[in-house]
């Protein structure tokens, strides 16, 4: 079966579609599908998975034009998985649903920092 993901932003801030060829994942959830891609094909595919039963709702994605919890909806051939909210994107299908901005800790409060940019080209 095939699945298409809306991915990004990449290092240039761009979003793009990527289609993956997968084994038959019938009976599994969309979260299982995302985890399969991340573990078996491309480790940089980000996904959020916590409760696996539709409670925390943070795995929400857009499928068939509707926002749905990825952990409780079945995977199917030809599925297109997009971000549930384009303003809240962290990476790929992961979006921010947690704390308000005013509660965010400024990372400058840290004592030591090894920045990701130091090692990436």
């Amino acid at each position, binding site marked *: 079966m095939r699945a298409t993901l809306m991915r990004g932003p990449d290092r240039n801030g761009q979003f793009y579609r990527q289609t993956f060829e997968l084994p038959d994942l019938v*009976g*599994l*959830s969309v979260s*299982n599908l995302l985890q399969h891609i*991340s*573990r078996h094909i*491309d*480790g*940089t*595919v*980000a*996904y*959020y*998975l*916590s*409760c*696996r*039963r*539709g*409670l*925390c*709702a*943070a795995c929400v994605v857009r499928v068939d034009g509707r926002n749905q*919890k990825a*952990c*409780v909806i*079945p995977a199917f051939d030809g599925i297109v998985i997009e971000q549930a909210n384009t303003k809240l994107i*962290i*990476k*790929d299908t*992961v979006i*921010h*649903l*947690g*704390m*308000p901005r*005013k*509660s*965010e*800790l*400024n*990372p*400058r*409060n*840290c*004592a*030591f*920092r*090894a*920045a*990701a940019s130091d*090692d*990436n080209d």
Partner: protein
Amino acid sequence: MSDIDVLVIGSGAAGLTAAVAAAEMGQKTVLLTKGQVARSGATATITGDICVDGRTCVDLLGLKADHQDTEDEFFEDTVMGGKFLNDQRLVEVMISEIGPILKRLKDNGLRMGDPIRGPGHRTARGVWVSGMELLQTLRKLVIRAGVKVREEFFATDVLLNDGVAVGVAGIDQRTGDILCFEAKAIVIATGGGMMIYPMQTAPEELTGDGHSLASRAGAQLIDMEMVQFLPCVLTDPPIWRGIQFPWLLGPQSGVRAWLLNRFGERFMDKWDPVNMEFATRDIISIACTKEVMEGRGGPNGGVFLSWAHLPSNIIDFSAEWYFRTHLSGDWQWEGFDFSNLVEEIKNGRAVEVNSASHFFMGGVATDLVGATSVPGLFAAGEVAGGVHGANRLSGNAGSQILVQGQQAGKAAVAYVKKVDRRRVLPSDWERVREVLETPLKRESGIMPFEIKEELQAIANLKVGIVRTADSLDEALAGVRRLRSDVLSRLYCRSSERRYNKEWADAVECRSLLDTLEATTLCALRRCESRGAHYRDDFPGQNDSGKLWNGLVSFSEGEINYTTRSVRSHRLSPPGSANQISIKKG
């Protein structure tokens, strides 16, 4: 700039409560969490009860309960349920402090239903609360108290200076940076380690991170062999894996469903002929596993739960009262539609069920208020061990996490006020950073998820519900082989740091290995069966000597095991010098 007073790791109810307590006492408080706040942690999965004694339910919370039920009866049930392995001082604190905390949450808008009676409780004490609503209420308090939060931050190491906890390092997953924060006191509230097993009721992030970082910092772990499994969860189809709907429709809601083996025999009479399917969860899990091991299981390695002897309208009643706030009339429960399954159940079809890892009774050893053996390091909630002994009663987790969160938050503040700030040593930071970066820098090796799966298979087959000395010896050898041969070869296919799930998986492998090794060693050394710990080679409970807890510590790469006497100042087991008697005071 490092001016953090109290740093809390974890955003379940324990972590949020600790952070609120510290911030409200005027301390600069920071919370780091691997997930997103109110969108992660096992608290989210509470669809039920937080235990409070009946009298407090009535007098303080205004709920319908048995006014004759006091803290003494609640204490006695908890210790008897824990098979007398509980730290009785921790039990006393939990029982006496939970009422006022729930009252405050109620005053802040948390909805509560009249208590239900879970197995092992003599009366209804389980105040009905939704875990997600609890998290939302606590989130509001955290914002109001001015706590600063870093989400999707994977805290991996506690750093010491002269034996004192002075900082926390980890991966800021959203940016891919590795950061180290200094703080005067650190509270670990990261939850259990259920992910060492392949099937769990608990959320994905419960990988034993706190057990690992606390023990690597020198803290002791207590009674790690005591892992609770929840019986009667679904295994098939895979999308329902680990979902406890059959349990809730049966024993949990007080409905007389029957457990049957593949021959249709009801087998609980061999284990608890009085309570049968209403036995506590430890006994049911052991009974089901033994049926399967002895060749009487179903095609998916489970046994069967059947409602076929009940009139179909009896099943409908449970939707009317037990599930009233969580199940609509059309059998939607949590995120799933179970209407077809219920229809099949009413038509007489049995459901194959299995047991899933559910809760860690063992964990980081603490004193009364959550202090570990490492100065400046506190633990609260499920990551902390001892209060439940060998088996946790239904609804006592909710009480534990709220009370211990508050206790540890306050204790951290008291500690902060009497110590001077110390710095993290740059050489320690460099060492931690280097270890974290290694999987990204390797060009080839073994992929983290493969190790996770191998480790879970070992845990399931050899450190599962039914254990023997042989199986545990094999598991220990397997874990040590993974640690020595494989941990040093883990690699990520991409060196991209920002939100690299494979990188987090690699670091979680260390948490899982530490947790599984401690669990296995504790299980090997307890040569008896007690509560959730069942040894096929020692099937009886040994009450002949003084009761003891097992303690594990890691130092210089070695794992050490010692024991201590159970802290039992009030209640002694039957058959010992003191028969069951409550000594007040």
